[in-house]
């Protein structure tokens, strides 16, 4: 079984994310990057499935040169190949542009039985790229998986729902999205880290994927950011240091709010 995992490499969680007011985009340069924890979970699920059923995992990401840190991590965890969609022409892509690039890269794979994405990325959490990818590929999408089972030619998931979960099934090839907390991603072992060094990351440009300015990048983006500003301020809160009277202060506040 060949599984493709699409995941993002994002600014490190220690970084306070900022928006560049001129570009009206998230600042992604000059900050340390890491494999999105949500993508690590998607990859972990893919690795477990191939360990169970045999096969291999290819990691695909679209991102800036710094994304290579996260790609190495994915390889060290156990992916056997990686594709880096790297081209200035991809900059400013909206969700559909991103999905077109990912779908084109997946189509270039010799074969795929399953695509695994995270339900949402940790930095932009639009949560719509995976179903776009599935629609473009013409394969069924099984979303919000809390558990994934593969049996011969079918994939079945437990899909998170408002009431609990639904059991949902489709024939392969298919695309699955994983919810956060589906598993605990493994830490790369030394052996994996060493092996990963020997794997060449395959870089692909927009032209390699036969995509032009009407497909990807700023020029193709249907969503245009008009402005980015500070949110209406709540006004500074009152700061007190508890010296045995914190509880009483809160009680006064609750009384004023009409709660007690």
């Amino acid at each position, binding site marked *: 079984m060949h599984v493709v995992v699409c995941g993002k490499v994002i600014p490190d969680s220690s970084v306070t*994310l900022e928006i560049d007011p001129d570009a*009206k985009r998230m600042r992604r340069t000059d900050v340390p990057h890491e494999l999105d924890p949500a993508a690590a979970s998607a990859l972990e699920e893919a690795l477990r499935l191939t360990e169970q059923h045999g096969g291999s995992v290819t990691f695909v990401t679209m991102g800036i040169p710094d994304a290579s840190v996260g790609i190495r991590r994915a390889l060290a965890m156990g992916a056997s190949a990686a594709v880096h969609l790297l081209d200035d022409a991809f900059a400013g892509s*909206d*969700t*559909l542009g991103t*999905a077109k690039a990912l779908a084109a890269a997946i189509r270039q794979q010799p074969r795929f039985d399953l695509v695994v994405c995270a*339900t949402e990325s*940790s930095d932009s*959490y639009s*949560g*719509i*790229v*995976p*179903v776009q990818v599935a*629609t*473009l590929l013409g394969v*069924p*999408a099984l*979303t*919000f998986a809390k558990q994934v089972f593969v049996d011969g030619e079918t994939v079945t998931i437990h*899909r998170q*729902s*408002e*009431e*609990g*979960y639904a*059991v*949902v099934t*489709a024939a392969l090839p*298919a695309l699955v999205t994983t919810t*956060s*907390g589906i598993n605990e991603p493994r830490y790369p072992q030394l052996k994996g880290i060493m092996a990963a060094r020997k794997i060449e990351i395959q870089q692909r440009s927009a032209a390699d994927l036969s995509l032009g300015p009407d497909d990807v990048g700023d020029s193709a*983006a*249907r*969503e*245009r*950011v*008009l*402005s*980015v*500003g500070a*949110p*209406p301020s*709540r006004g500074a*809160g*009152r*700061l*007190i*240091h*508890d010296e*045995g*009277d*914190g*509880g*009483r202060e*809160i*009680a006064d*506040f609750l009384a004023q709010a009409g*709660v*007690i």
Partner: protein
Amino acid sequence: MADRIWVYAEAVEGTLTSTTLEMLTMATAAGEAEAILLGSAPDDAVGALGAYGARTVYRSDDPVFDEYLMRPAIEAVAHLVEMHHPSAVLFASSYAGRDVAAGLSARFGCGAISDVSGFALLNGRVEATIPALGGSYVAKSTLVGAGPNLLLVRPKSVEANPVGGTANVEPVPVPTDDDVRQVRIVDRVAVPVEGPQLEGAKNIVAGGRGLKSAEAFHMLHELADLIGGAVGATRAVVDAAWVPYSMQIGQTGKTVKADVYIACGISGAIQHLAGMKSSKHIVAINTDAQAPIFSVADLCVVGDVFQVVPQLIEEIKKRKGLG
């Protein structure tokens, strides 16, 4: 002619979701509201949609919408859009809402804006407000190019407001293509949750890793009972299995809008803030005066939860004449 704004309605456990009603209120303010309701729904659903402002309800209760995931709904809505050309279509940022909006976007090759908290229409052009990065910024976005304006709306962005109308019912053509039957829903399993529910709770006491253990949540339950509220949590403590996922508040958990939100031992990561920031009154208790949660709190108490929470419980009991 007024802009026609569609709301993709959802029913869960025999009631319309609160986000459905909130979206109708938004749609009514921006133009003429209409709703799409597919699959099984409570008997009075069309009446309720009308009461919250829908003039027309596009309705089909065909079982295909309950038996197969997303594709029948995507095809049915796509067909309606091609027939009627609404000015905008609103979806909840819910499981079904995201799937259907994403599928439509790929099908029409059009854009979709996620995480919308409000919008306006100016000559057919949509201007959406998005609280970006957990609400640290407010962005305004528009959609260009052909195709419907698809907006994914954050829960609790507005207060739902009944206007007391009635809706006409228009039947929805049911897609018959075999292709839509790719993903079958085999079973639905309800996982009951205990105690007062976070959704709709007036007041919330939430705990984070600062509580150190599952046991410490007892004192939060005691406090919540005293102020008539429910208990919530951060993802860090859900991941640690101190409390169930149903209690998680934030980007990947529930969005709440409490009258009073008391954050205990919570750092205030943007993913947590995304789910609770629009609460009316926020109190935070944290040992670290620099904790980001204080940037959204009205009352910031620098202190130890194991000191302050018991004090608060005693104080409330005293005032209520309970102790």
